[in-house]
């Protein structure tokens, strides 16, 4: 299992290296884990300030299989680069929301390696912008650990028209039970 764990880690580091360490940050489940909510994931998600066609060029130059997907703009889809690196699926997203690049954090992860991650507010904004059920649940799990973020996240969920789903997850006893009291910060 330890060897397998290296595979996902290696994929994340390779992807970051290929896109450009200064120009991208980890989002998605890996970022959620960094901020305290650990769950399994089968892919790596990054946000980048590099134009996506350039991301494709950089990745393909390293032999990484990927493609730029545009989605349906009228339906609110966003473009992204999707591919597979070292057997692990990945998405590289453009900054769909305002990203404070100066406020991203570089987390040393051992072995002389580091991963850059967006701040928790940016992560919440990106998650609610994406708006899928797992995204909303992730945000709820995060604010249960960080009660100081509950009020602004609630306001943001309402702005994204996700208030009902947000409140339903927030008030679900089974969801609340997943956050041990010891993991909850005092606001």
């Amino acid at each position: 299992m330890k060897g397998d764990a290296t595979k996902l880690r290696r994929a994340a580091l390779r992807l970051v290296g290929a896109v450009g360490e200064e120009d991208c940050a980890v989002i998605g489940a890996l970022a959620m884990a960094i901020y305290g909510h650990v769950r399994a994931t089968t892919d790596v998600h990054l946000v980048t300030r590099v134009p996506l066609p350039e991301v494709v060029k950089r990745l393909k130059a390293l032999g990484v299989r990927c493609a730029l997907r545009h989605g349906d703009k009228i339906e609110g889809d966003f473009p992204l680069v999707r591919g597979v690196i070292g057997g692990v699926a990945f998405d590289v997203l453009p900054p769909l929301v305002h990203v404070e690049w100066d406020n991203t954090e570089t987390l040393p992860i051992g072995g002389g390696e580091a991963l850059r991650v967006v701040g928790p507010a940016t992560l919440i904004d990106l998650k609610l912008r994406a708006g899928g059920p797992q995204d909303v649940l992730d945000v709820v799990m995060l604010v249960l650990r960080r009660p100081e973020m509950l009020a602004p996240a609630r306001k943001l969920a309402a702005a994204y028209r996700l208030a009902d789903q947000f409140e339903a997850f927030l008030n679900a006893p089974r969801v609340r039970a997943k956050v041990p009291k010891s993991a909850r910060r005092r606001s």
Partner: protein
Amino acid sequence: MSRSGRPRTYYELTPVGIKEAVAKGEAISGFVAKEPKPVRSRRELEAMRRSLEECFEVSEFAMTIQRAGRARGL
């Protein structure tokens, strides 16, 4: 179905619709702008690193059983 699960919002170009769209736009744009850069203690950074490591491990376990299931045609 769109890629994101969020229901679409279409505002009418009326004073009421514009007011609502502007208010929601401001709520969204103001959220991240207030984010301060935190100063992390060594202990906090270590906890973050451990959480990430745990995520790598549970994820790989999930991927391993997913592969095993696929191999058996499940």
